[in-house]
């Protein structure tokens, strides 16, 4: 009985830790580690730090992009916003 208990627990621990390592993005693949840009309708602009300089509100749109060579590739989903995120306009941010 103890053997069964021990194997269930060992399996659970191994699966969870292994799963966490397997699904964590490697530094090179993690787009969030790269400099983030947002598209203001005509050009790509430096976004700053997520949660401090800007927010990504829920949406199926693209919130921020990162640069690969000279191409801007989508990174975070959502709507880029800095203030009054309900209406998703982009004047200076005042969170906090």
């Amino acid at each position, binding site marked *: 009985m103890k053997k069964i208990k021990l194997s269930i627990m060992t399996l659970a621990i191994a699966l969870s830790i292994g799963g966490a390592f397997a699904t964590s993005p490697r530094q090179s693949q993690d787009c969030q580690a790269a400099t983030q840009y947002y598209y203001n309708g005509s050009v790509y602009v430096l976004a700053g730090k997520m949660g401090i300089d800007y*927010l990504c509100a829920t949406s199926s749109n693209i919130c921020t992009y990162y640069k690969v060579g000279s191409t801007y590739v989508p990174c975070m989903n959502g709507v880029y916003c800095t203030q009054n995120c309900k209406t998703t306009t982009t004047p200076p941010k005042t969170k906090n």
Partner: protein
Amino acid sequence: MNKRQVVLESISALLIMLFLYASVSKFLDFQRFIGEMNNQPLPNSWTPFLVWTVPSLEIAISVALIFERTRMAGFIASLALMTLFTIYAAAILLHFFEYVPCSCGGVIRKLTWPQHLVFNLFFVGLSVAGIILQRRSSFHSISITKNSFV
């Protein structure tokens, strides 16, 4: 190992997998976790406290669920934490906050907010089942011990 014990062990294992996976993922990508925490509609001044307490609590609950002696406390703590997460997900869905943050990245984090709510409710249910079964199991073992002395 009777049926009840098998179910109890399975519930514990599922909760351990959830909490350990969630906490290890957070620590493995800590900078991203800080960013995502800042993106939540909570004051940014809470972030330094939350980024350490949430994963630490998750690890503590996992450890408590492993051992028979601390399992009940583990189930209760798991119920409390999952209830808090569920209330938070429900508050977001009910537009209680100024905006709805994106739930982006990771495996669990790829869920939408309604999916998050259902997912959390499932684990709230598991924690409740764990508490009930653990109590019954404790009563059962106490009565067996008493009977053996008669």
